[in-house]
């Protein structure tokens, strides 16, 4: 069940949920652009609003909000937060 398994990609994050970005599985130019916007491996990412219909989605990262289509979000892989419950605002 998705409730018990930790989220694997950004797509699995529910609104308000937070995780650590592990790696970006996208071509170099796209992933560099995402890194410039704050999607650096090791940074905290939280799911925020979605467009009506659920796609694209907005993510909160490094003090800003960035919209990504679901197909892109599915390529950003996560690792779980080090200490569950110790979530703090980014």
């Amino acid at each position: 069940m998705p409730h018990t398994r930790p989220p694997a990609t950004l797509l699995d994050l529910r609104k308000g949920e937070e995780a650590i970005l592990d790696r970006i599985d996208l071509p170099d130019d796209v992933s560099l652009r995402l890194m410039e916007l704050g999607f650096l491996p090791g940074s905290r990412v939280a799911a925020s609003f979605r467009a009506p219909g659920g796609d694209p989605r907005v993510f909160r990262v490094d003090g800003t909000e960035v919209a990504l289509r679901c197909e892109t979000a599915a390529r950003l892989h996560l690792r779980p937060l080090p200490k569950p419950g110790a979530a703090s605002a980014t």
Partner: protein
Amino acid sequence: MNAASTLPVRPAGEAAPPPSRVVAVVGPPNSGKSTLFNRLTGLRQKVANFPGVTVEQHLGKLRIEDEAELDVIDLPGVYSLNPRSEDERVTLDVLMGRMEGVPRPDTILLILDVTNLGRHLVLAAPVLALGLPTLIVLNMADELERRGGDVQVEELARRLGAPVALISAASGEGYDTILQFLRGRIGIPRPVELPALNDLPRCREWAARLGAEAKYLPPAPPVWTRRLDSLFLHPVAGPLVFLAVVVGVFQTIFSAAAPLMDLVDRAVGASGDLVGRLLPDGPLRSLVVEGIWGGVGSVLVFLPQILILFLFIGLLEDSGYLARAALIADRTMAKVGLQGKSFIPLLSAYACAVPAIMATRTIENKRDRIATILIAPFMTCSARLPVYTLIIAAFLPETPLLGPFLGTRAAALLGLYVLGFAAAVVTARVLKSSILKSERTPFVLEMPPYRRPTLRQVGLRLFDRSKVFLRRAGTVILAMSILLWGLAHVPTKNGKAPEIADSFAGTIGRTVEPLIEPLGFNWKIGIGLITSLAAREVIVGTLGTIYGIEGEDDGAGLQAALRHDLTPAGAVALLVFFAFAMQCMSTIAVVRRETGGWTWPILQFTYMGVLAWVGAFVAFRLVTALLA
């Protein structure tokens, strides 16, 4: 320049400082760069393109009391100086003095959003590595304070090896520090070692460390942005607000502009009468009153409508709502093969295709960008309004359809907007599934916090737009009006002006008549179609001039004259023709520049022309059959 010589850091190999100082304003998108630039230069700025590329350059002048004038260059918003996108390449080239025709900057103002300091500070590394005297301008000081953030400016300056100013570009707070810096009154700390520039994670760590050393306390997330987003991005309320905004904008354009347009119309009429009375009867009076006032005046009337449209686009953009609108529109745009970022250029194409086509440079994917450029002129631009309004008012009586909310005329107008939009959507689909097919590119869009648009910023934009419109009226439309008046008055017969049918203009009109007769147009409309190749609204001026020479009045007279020359079916055909045809020299020129050659503009002109002819033909036949 003694002010410059007190700055310790100067590029090596420069013996004498240049006579005037050149300041470059650099910063990431949404850092308030343009607001600062506008504050520095006010009305003394001009917009052009950097030579050879599609990136807009804003140049302005700044005079600080009793000092020489400074040139200020506003560079495009960038996150890094890696020359990957065109914006970044241009920024780097200008800063290195490699951009032809642009003076090499000797001073940099690096503007960063202090509410997001960690991420924005990353850009300081490559900029400081250039070795030019640089002031780090931390913008949004008021927002930082309001949201409970803090930073120690002196400590940050010491760690960065560059002076730092904390300002608010919107309110002008801290602005004096920038002027002091430009006068060379602020000392520059010792340069520090910078991180390896090509290692983004390391640069980000460096920025984070500097922030910590300067006791940077990030502000609380913007409360109002969350609240507004929970409404504007609500699954049900969001799309409704979106629709309400779009419909509201159009409704206001038509209802609010009417009294202002009346006012301009009366002013044009009164001044024309006055000038007519001052001039002796003869060819000169005819040229001035019928040619110039009739031609240019009938177009000037539309200034209020165009300004109201730009006012809305400015407000939507400056407030941050436009990014949300792009988000909401993304799914719909994806269905025709485009992406949400195409929405912003397409929305501004309702005002004018020229800035819209320039705005497509935010779309990274080349094929998506060309597709957006090709469909942008189908959107009903403000230059079509005069034509639509005139024809609809001449042929369609006003009767309420939905009580006071919608009348027949507004409905017809709305229908024409839908027609243009449908043509754009179908064309996009065809292009994206054939010659411009591409991988779906990731849609990555930063959502800026909502901000209150400032009067100054919006006002400057409107001033800029009026200038462009009036320049067009004063050049293209004036020239066409004079040319047409001339063509309508030669060859003279027994020293008298000929009947318009026998004039050169009439001859030209009759030459194209066989081509347009199947659409229900006669030679007079033909003259209008030819002159409107320069700009769509010129046809109104042309018909004004032609009927003026024929002795009809303008205003209601122009409508009556049109009814005399066009059948209702012909009127519908003319509307359809204008909805589809690419009659605009400025658009053709900008497409050529943005696509780097004649291939796309020629293809586009031909395609739209054929579609216009076929569409008008079908409309003429259909309406003729229906009314028979």
